[in-house]
């Protein structure tokens, strides 16, 4: 039979003087002791020490793999109980209230019981407070990070991509392609000129006149460099959507300083 302290606080049933208590459920030896007293309707001012000590010892024997500190605290209380029991057996001024060996234990038990009551009132107050909210409780939903955006491809996209592939052109063996070097300086000027005329320009428009990939690469690098110097602002609403280049807060400053651009070229 298991008694559960945190449950409905059923009065403990005692069969043949055997009382099994789940000690882990108790916050400490005082909690357990109070449980034994209160569930058996014992007068706290006249605790039958022999009986309570026996029940307490039985209960802590049931303690499994509890940590050493906790076991020590329960054993210390057991020792206190045994000492009180021994004192009561000794002849002396036992009838004198002030010398009742149980007095300090009773005082501690009552004090602990009061604290437990206060703790339960604090719990109610905490629960009540938890149902009331001040400003700032509800915040706007944060936007999902770009990395988490799923890449969605439909069959039509794949089909369109397949159709777009052209058969490779047979190259003339002897022909040599001389690429005109593309400088970043040139692309910086292109972007600055574009955002000077209008507030924003789409990246694709800037590279449209050229077929070679190098123009796209250099324009992109120039865009990044200008973005870093805040001459322009780069915006893209979601992955793979059009990239827009906006006039930035430092527009007109960076382009006027050619040395900085030379720096960036290196």
């Amino acid at each position, binding site marked *: 039979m298991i008694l559960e302290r945190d449950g409905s606080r059923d009065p403990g049933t005692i069969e043949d003087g055997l009382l099994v208590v789940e000690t882990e459920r108790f916050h*400490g030896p005082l*909690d357990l002791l109070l449980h034994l007293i209160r569930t058996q309707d014992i007068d706290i001012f006249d605790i039958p020490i022999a009986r309570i000590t026996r029940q307490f010892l039985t209960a802590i024997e049931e303690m499994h793999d509890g940590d050493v500190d906790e076991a020590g605290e329960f054993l210390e209380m057991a020792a206190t109980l045994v000492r009180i029991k021994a004192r009561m057996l000794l002849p002396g001024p036992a009838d004198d209230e002030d010398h009742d060996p149980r007095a300090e234990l009773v005082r501690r038990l009552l*004090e602990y019981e009061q*604290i437990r009551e*206060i703790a339960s009132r604090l719990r109610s*107050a*905490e629960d*009540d407070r*938890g149902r009331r909210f*001040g400003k700032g409780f509800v915040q706007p939903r944060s936007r999902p990070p770009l990395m988490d955006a799923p890449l969605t491809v439909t069959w039509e996209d794949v089909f369109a991509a397949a159709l777009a592939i052209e058969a490779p052109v047979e190259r003339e063996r002897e022909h040599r392609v001389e690429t005109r070097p593309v400088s970043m300086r040139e692309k910086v000027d292109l972007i600055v000129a574009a955002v000077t005329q209008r507030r924003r320009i789409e990246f694709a428009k800037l590279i449209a006149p050229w077929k070679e990939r190098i123009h796209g690469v250099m324009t992109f690098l120039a865009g990044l460099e200008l973005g870093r110097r805040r001459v322009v602002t780069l915006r893209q609403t979601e992955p793979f959507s059009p990239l827009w280049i906006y006039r930035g807060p430092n527009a007109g400053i960076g382009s006027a300083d050619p040395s900085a651009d030379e720096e960036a070229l290196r």
Partner: protein
Amino acid sequence: MNDASIVEAILFASDAPLAAGDIVRADEALDEDRVEAALTALRDEYDRSGRAFELRLVADGYQLITRPEFAPYLERFDTVPRTSRLSGPALEALAIVAYRQPISRVEVEYIRGVNSTGVIRTLLDRGLIEAVGRGEGVGRPVLYGTTGRFMEHFGFASLDDLPRPDELPVVLRDGTPLEGEADAEG
């Protein structure tokens, strides 16, 4: 522009409790009496018109907070971490500190009958108690007391909101809660 509207604007914009003494700063014409009167007028108005929020005195300051019956709706917005409930042992230790402050760890442990290093640490970390001085005796132990955060956590206006011993089923001869907050001794 009447006093109540000015006070309402300040409370609306604040996310922490404000004392009447803080609100006074809003206008030269205001004094604490007029602010208190405005606060009373606002509280009555909110109660009468059945607003979703009310004016509450929390930790010696006034704050607009929602009424508990709206909790189920608000709780669907879990974007702000809720203040978690304290464990049973932590509540016990906190109750002892609240009623016996200033008090040392060893005294708390004697009353609870168990080691309380961990729970005291938790209460300190959560700002519910703080060191308020040092006691006499061996090692001059650190003494702890409750904080303004403690008041806010439980929605108490002051320590007077704690249950009084004569309201409790178990009455102790010397179990009176201490009045006022203990002063720090540096």
